[in-house]
């Protein structure tokens, strides 16, 4: 069969999500953020939330998320996205509010906001990209940096006696009573992308059903910060990150009830 006969609109099985804007993303080649943006756009479109979803953009690599996904957005101060999401969701109870944050934003400067929003059980979705590094500022150590990982501020590797242990935010928020769904996913393979999409979809449905806070942690790569090729960073993530951040649902109140 000729290529021209296959490439026809009726044969299309996968295309760019409708809600993804035409802007070229500023992320480095191979960044996990792009895939997560794509699945968030797909989920919003599939659930028909285009006019009802309000995103809270963080400070960090995803600071320009509002340029890429075509829904309403508010830009928060560094780490304060869950606090702003609280306000937006309380003032607009009919909207579905989600935050999109990185580990430096959510787990370092925004720890208090995150924990208290989860404790209050706000009806929001928190999407956290955990790549264990401050990507935008040049690869400094974040709370989620693995032990022994070399970063700009830990050039000889993270030392537990000096820098402490890496923080498992998903496990921390899972013990809080306000959260209804806490999961940890990845987007490095096709199967992982499908699972992550299902998790984000469930989180959005929970927020729409007013069940409480849904927390989706996505273990991602930062090939520029880790100083590896995108392919190698995916392998490094599988070998090292997944040992400390095992994938899967951590809490799901639908199943325990």
């Amino acid at each position, binding site marked *: *069969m000729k*290529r021209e*006969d*296959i*490439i*026809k609109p009726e*044969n*299309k*099985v*996968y*295309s*760019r*999500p409708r809600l*993804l804007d035409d802007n*070229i*993303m500023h*992320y*480095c*080649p*191979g*960044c*996990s*953020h*792009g*895939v997560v943006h*794509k699945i968030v756009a797909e989920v919003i479109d599939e659930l028909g939330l285009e006019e009802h979803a309000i995103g809270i953009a963080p400070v960090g690599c995803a600071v320009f998320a509002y340029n890429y996904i075509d829904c309403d957005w508010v830009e928060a101060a560094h780490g304060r996205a869950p606090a702003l999401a609280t306000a937006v969701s309380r003032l607009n109870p009919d909207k579905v509010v989600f935050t999109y944050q990185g580990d430096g934003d959510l787990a370092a400067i925004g720890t208090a906001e995150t924990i208290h929003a989860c404790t209050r059980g706000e009806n929001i979705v928190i999407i956290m990209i955990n790549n264990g590094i401050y990507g935008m500022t040049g690869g400094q150590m974040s709370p989620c940096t693995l032990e022994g990982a070399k970063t700009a501020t830990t050039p000889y590797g993270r030392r537990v006696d000096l820098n402490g242990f890496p923080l498992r935010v998903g496990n921390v928020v899972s013990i809080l009573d306000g959260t209804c769904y806490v999961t940890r996913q990845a*987007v*490095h*393979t*096709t199967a992982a*992308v*499908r699972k992550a999409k299902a998790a984000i979809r469930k989180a959005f449905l929970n927020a729409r059903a007013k069940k409480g806070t849904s927390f989706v942690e996505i273990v991602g790569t930062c*090939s520029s910060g880790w100083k590896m*090729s*995108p*392919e190698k960073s*995916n392998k490094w993530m599988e070998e090292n990150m997944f040992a400390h951040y095992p994938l899967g649902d951590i809490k799901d109140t639908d199943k325990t009830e």
Partner: protein
Amino acid sequence: MAKIHGAVTIERERCKGCDLCVVACPCDVLALQPKEVNDRGYHFAYPAKEEACIGCAACAMVCPDACIEVYKVIVK
């Protein structure tokens, strides 16, 4: 037996040459341009062995820049 014919289109200017689609493809269809670059200087991906494509969309799903569209025809 039914045969599946697939094809991919890659937006050349949007591609950043990250190589993830090449790794994800189960049929080794895709490759990065060895010499040619796009306007931003990246060696973009292209279907090198397009007759082997089965339209599984694995490449498109892992593409961080959403520049791949997948088409599939099943001939019975």
